[in-house]
């Protein structure tokens, strides 16, 4: 047992990989359907996966800021943003009216029991991942400060080969 654990500990760096594939987890769409994250594609263009909640002020600032830039980002790079709401039963009913009330154009999915949040090891929101055209996680960022969207977009352009 000792040897096994030691061997495992020593072998871990070989596998360890700050980036990786998107895990396959089931989330809910706004119309109550279940979809697997393995079905997320964007025709070879990058995808931004943003974890947020209706009770998280910096999350809403980040998504509102990107909303003003989103049209340009899409035109220039073809990027798609999937906003993963971690609102639980208490507040998940507010997600659709809130998103529409803001006029956001994002794809929004619900993760009410934190399954995807846990699978991606997210501690707190906002937390953003960037997937390249092949679905590999190539970049991540926790927190939001005004201006962070510039760094995100630099990464999006790189991932899109622009």
């Amino acid at each position, binding site marked *: 047992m000792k040897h096994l654990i030691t061997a495992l500990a020593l072998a871990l760096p070989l596998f360890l990989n700050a980036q*990786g594939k998107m895990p396959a987890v089931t989330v809910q769409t706004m119309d109550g359907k279940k979809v697997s994250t393995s079905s997320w594609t964007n025709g070879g263009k990058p995808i931004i996966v943003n974890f947020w909640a209706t009770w998280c002020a910096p999350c809403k600032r980040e998504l509102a800021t990107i909303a003003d830039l989103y049209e340009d980002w899409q035109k220039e790079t073809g990027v798609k943003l999937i906003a993963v709401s971690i609102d639980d039963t208490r507040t998940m009913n507010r997600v659709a009216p809130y998103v529409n009330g803001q006029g956001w154009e994002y794809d929004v999915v619900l993760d009410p029991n934190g399954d995807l949040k846990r699978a991606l090891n997210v501690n707190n929101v906002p937390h953003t991942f960037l997937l390249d055209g092949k679905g590999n996680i190539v970049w991540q960022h926790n927190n939001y400060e005004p201006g962070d969207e510039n760094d995100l977009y630099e990464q999006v352009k790189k991932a899109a080969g622009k």
Partner: protein
Amino acid sequence: MIGTGTGALRLIPFMALLLIGRSGLAQAPDSTATPPPHTGPDLPQVHGNFSTDAQYYRVDSVIGAEVPDEKMGINAWGNIQYTQGRFTAGIRFETYEPPLLGYPAGEPYSGTGIGYRYARYSIDDLDITVGNFFEQFGQGMAFRSFEERYLGVDNAMDGVRVKFQPTEGIYLKGVVGRQRFGFDDGFNNGVGIVRGADVELSLTEFLPTAFPAWVEKGRNLVLGGSFVSRYQEDKDPLRELPENVGLWAARANYTNAHWNLYTEYAYKINDPNASNDFIYKPGQGLLMNATYSTKGLGISAGAHAFDNMVFQSDRATQNLFNLNINFLPTLAKQHTYNLPATLYPYATQPNGEVSYQGEVFYKFKKGTPLGGKYGTKLAVNYCTAWSLDSTAMPDDTLQFKGYTTAFFQRGERQYFSDFNIEVRKKLSKTWEIAATYLNLVYDIEVVQGKAGAPVVFADMFIVEGLHNFTSRNSVRFEVQHLRTNQDKGNWVTGLAEFTFSPHWFVAAMDQFNYETLDESFSQNGEEVEVKRTHYPIGSMGYIRGGNRFTMNYGRQRAGIFCVGGVCRQVPASNGLSISITSTF
């Protein structure tokens, strides 16, 4: 000795991972987007996260801050997940040496050990988990196991879960296990066994050809049903208690391009327990929610009623945070500003409550008189909660049924109401401003269980501003004012936060309990001299990639800390606190 040996051994891979995780990120924190070295589908991957909150406490008699014998507290968690193809395994280590004051909300935690471990295998339509897991049926009125780490709520199941999708649009779930209770050098489970099954049918996915118009117009109907049962041995010498307590629930969800209608009903057989004074009365719950939304407008309305719906996997537990099988959240809005979020947040009364809420989000378009150059956003929200109309049984010495109810009829006593309106407007390229008004009614005696405490009537005004000095540097400020003639009286809070994207922030906040209208006020039935107290606190933080480091120094007011639908009381404290979170 053996115990210590294995404990240390267990920690080796964990420590190794932490070190590697850190150094890996140190090399390429937020720089180049290099393609990952392994892209094959079946190569193993190890990921995880780490988070810790530590505080060094100082004595502060003015605010009643206490210091534990150890002078400091620390909570820490480390998750490691191993994935290879369809196989996943995970383990979480936890440390409470000792836990932070007031943590957790339920059964005490202490020591270091394993808090969660599981193995999972999935092939397309079948998904099997052994060990710990989190799961939810419908909106949780029948069953929800979940964690809110920062609250200290974790009722993870420990057992087996099978999910199966026999055909498109049909989802089956089955769970059996015990729930996490406390933590003493490792998690321990409660006494009761929880068994549950859930079936869900998504009509247009199951029969797309039968509803072509629905598919085309984006309509769908999802129907679901759950059954959950708890087994707990009856060791009571006097009473005959039901050892198997069942709860069933049914739900329906209709959606189309603009509407979303949801309803769920649950019925529980008689379940004498510590929270209902061991009455042999069945419980029931009903929730309904409707939303309408279109670009620029969102409306929601909801209502629920709960009667005798506490359902825990130990009927004798005295604490409503322990071993909950179901989840009954409040309809009240979860505020993000400090004063309304932590002074008087509402919590559901699961043994008897009728509550309603309504909310409107509206965006005045750019170029309209009210919208101006950038548009204006408006949010109006109202929620109220009342007692359930119930009458005590006149002669209840034989049946112990407790009371009779007129279900979904509200009673005489108002527990809570919150009316709030927020206007948010971008004034220019560099300025944004938001103004909020709240009117609150809050029955402390009911919500916080403090006998004789008054009903609070409070008004709050909040102004928030955001200014960008450059594309990377900005300041955000808040001024919050609360006026009330009850409880602790009036408060004013000021906050300023400077951010330097992408790495740094510094912030300072002061909460000042400045005065009441009278020279003294009533607290717990006694006249208390007004104490004018400042609660200053400073914070700074550093963020890089998936890592965050924050530090706070100052006074923290006793308050209620809520995440999601659950709240816990946090005692007043003074000192230095440090938090680190990392995702790798």
